[in-house]
């Protein structure tokens, strides 16, 4: 028996122990699992689209201090999550962990909070693509870029991502693999361009660590904290490595590495990129006051044509990021619906026999993300005096939703461990040993801190939106799901005969044929 086939059998048996059939195509290797999270973190999306936000509030010091500070704490969160992914390798991830570490209601809330964050992240990423692409397209086709054209562009981008995700994990995984190298390549080209072809000389390194300068009306320390949204939003979405765990070969080792290393590499490459962009700033005040600070700095430093080419390259990277984020979002919904946690669950848990993808969940992800942007568009149209920016609204929603969902299972694991329910024998191969509780506690403290920071003015609209969603969740729970949500524990009652029947049924209809095993390294 080859090592790959052995792993596939073992992975399938591990999944079957939780009462689930191997429905998704298990074809992702370690690099693909890393690449999907690295692509969603996408330093060329988060750090770039919120570059103006960071610069406006925290000045150049935001890049020198804010980025590594956030990265340090996010790595702590990622390490704690990675440990759980290794111990409980199912696509439901955060929600499934919370369910079995505490109870199904904790799991249900975790899932919905995660889902809210996922809507925010998909919408935020694809809206970023359209914020950059629409002005570039307007230059090419000679129209005026407006909020309406940006919304249309956003819809088209979502559509392309929906189609590719529907077609299959193999093509998406190939795009993700390419995307990881593409991100590194574009950062290298950008850094080299700024280092060697920037008009005039670069600022001294001191400039990168210059604190005390803000272009907002807030006191510096407060403004600096608001500016952390730039880095904090960038470092989201690494739970994708856990959501694609049922599509990864040897996931108990590869998924945790995917979670942690995607954050670590993003920190390194993101810092190098931000450092060179910031050292290229000619007039920080003008950049902060421009419509798009990143575009402004690049065009000032590299000139119109060269700058435009660089921006197209960045847009492509953002597009890859959006593609991966829909994959992650749809898998999360698939897993949650499999346990009947959503309205019309049967629909969203359905797997396309032809493509072995959760096709309906994919299109639901597309529609929900578009609706979030559409609602914000309508609010802004009906209240022209509104001051919040769409991108800051979406990103704040996603940061709080995702990080709270990250924090709940980490906290529940510590509680279960203290109660003696979760023991050393339950840990997977990837674990933090005696440092687990210390790192888990630090992760919780950071999550509480940033959740507060992300919803204070000027992002209070995100706070209201999240509060409204929580009220809705409580109502849904009390009125229906408290009694009718079976939770993942119910799957444990599924007989092995039923699990095998489901697997045989899908293998018969899969275009991949055979066992559906791909032998990616």
């Amino acid at each position: 028996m080859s090592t790959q086939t052995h792993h596939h059998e073992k992975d399938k048996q591990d999944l079957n122990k939780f009462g689930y059939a191997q429905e998704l195509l298990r074809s992702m290797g370690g690099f693909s699992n890393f690449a999907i999270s690295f692509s969603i973190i996408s330093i060329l999306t988060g750090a770039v689209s919120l570059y103006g936000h960071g610069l406006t509030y925290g000045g150049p010091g935001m890049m020198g201090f804010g980025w590594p500070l956030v990265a340090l704490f996010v790595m702590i969160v990622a390490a704690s999550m990675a440990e759980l992914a290794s111990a409980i390798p199912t696509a439901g991830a955060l929600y499934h962990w919370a369910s079995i570490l505490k109870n199904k209601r904790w799991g249900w809330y975790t899932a919905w909070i995660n889902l809210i964050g996922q809507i925010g992240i998909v919408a935020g990423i694809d809206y970023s693509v359209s914020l950059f692409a629409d002005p570039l397209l307007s230059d090419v086709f000679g129209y005026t870029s407006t909020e309406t054209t940006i919304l249309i562009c956003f819809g088209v981008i979502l559509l392309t991502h929906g189609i590719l995700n529907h077609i299959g994990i193999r093509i998406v995984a190939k795009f993700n693999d390419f995307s990881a190298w593409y991100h590194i390549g574009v950062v290298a080209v950008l850094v080299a361009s700024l280092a060697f072809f920037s008009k005039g000389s670069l600022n001294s390194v001191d400039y990168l660590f210059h604190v005390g300068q803000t272009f907002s009306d807030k006191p510096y320390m407060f403004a600096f904290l608001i500016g952390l949204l730039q880095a904090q939003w960038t470092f989201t979405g690494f739970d994708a490595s856990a959501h694609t765990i049922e599509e990864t070969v040897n996931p108990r080792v590869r998924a945790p590495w995917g979670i942690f290393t995607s954050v670590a590499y993003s920190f390194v490459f993101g810092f190098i990129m931000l450092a060179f962009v910031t050292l290229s700033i000619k007039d920080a005040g003008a950049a902060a006051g421009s419509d798009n600070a990143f575009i402004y700095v690049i065009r000032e430093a590299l000139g119109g044509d060269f700058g435009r080419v660089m921006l197209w390259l960045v847009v492509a990277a953002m597009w890859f990021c959006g593609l991966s984020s829909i994959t992650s979002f749809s898998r999360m919904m698939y897993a949650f619906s499999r346990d009947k946690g959503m309205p019309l669950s049967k629909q969203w848990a359905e797997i396309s026999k032809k493509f072995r993808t959760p096709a309906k969940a994919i299109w639901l992800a597309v529609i929900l993300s578009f609706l979030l942007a559409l609602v914000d568009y309508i609010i802004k149209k009906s209240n022209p005096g509104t001051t919040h920016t769409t991108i800051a609204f979406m990103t704040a929603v996603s940061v709080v939703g995702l990080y709270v969902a990250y924090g709940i299972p980490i906290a529940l694991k510590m509680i279960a461990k203290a109660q003696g329910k979760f023991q050393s024998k339950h840990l997977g191969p990837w674990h933090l040993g005696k440092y687990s509780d210390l790192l888990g506690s630090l992760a919780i403290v950071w999550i509480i801190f940033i959740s507060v920071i992300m919803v204070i003015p000027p992002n209070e609209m995100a706070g209201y939106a999240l509060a409204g969603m929580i009220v809705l969740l409580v109502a849904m729970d009390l009125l229906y799901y408290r009694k009718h949500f079976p939770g993942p524990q119910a799957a444990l009652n599924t007989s092995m005969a039923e699990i095998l029947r489901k697997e045989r049924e899908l293998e018969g209809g899969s275009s991949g044929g055979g066992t559906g095993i791909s032998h990616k390294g």
Partner: protein
Amino acid sequence: MELGFGIALILVTCLFALWIVRLAGNNVRNFDESKHESFIGK
């Protein structure tokens, strides 16, 4: 002064990443499958 603090922060972040890689890597290598039991919440 600010430059020194900044460089120190970057170094600490890098060293933390390397420490986790080493810690988890050792645990993966020394993992004993026979002692493992799936946590299924029952």
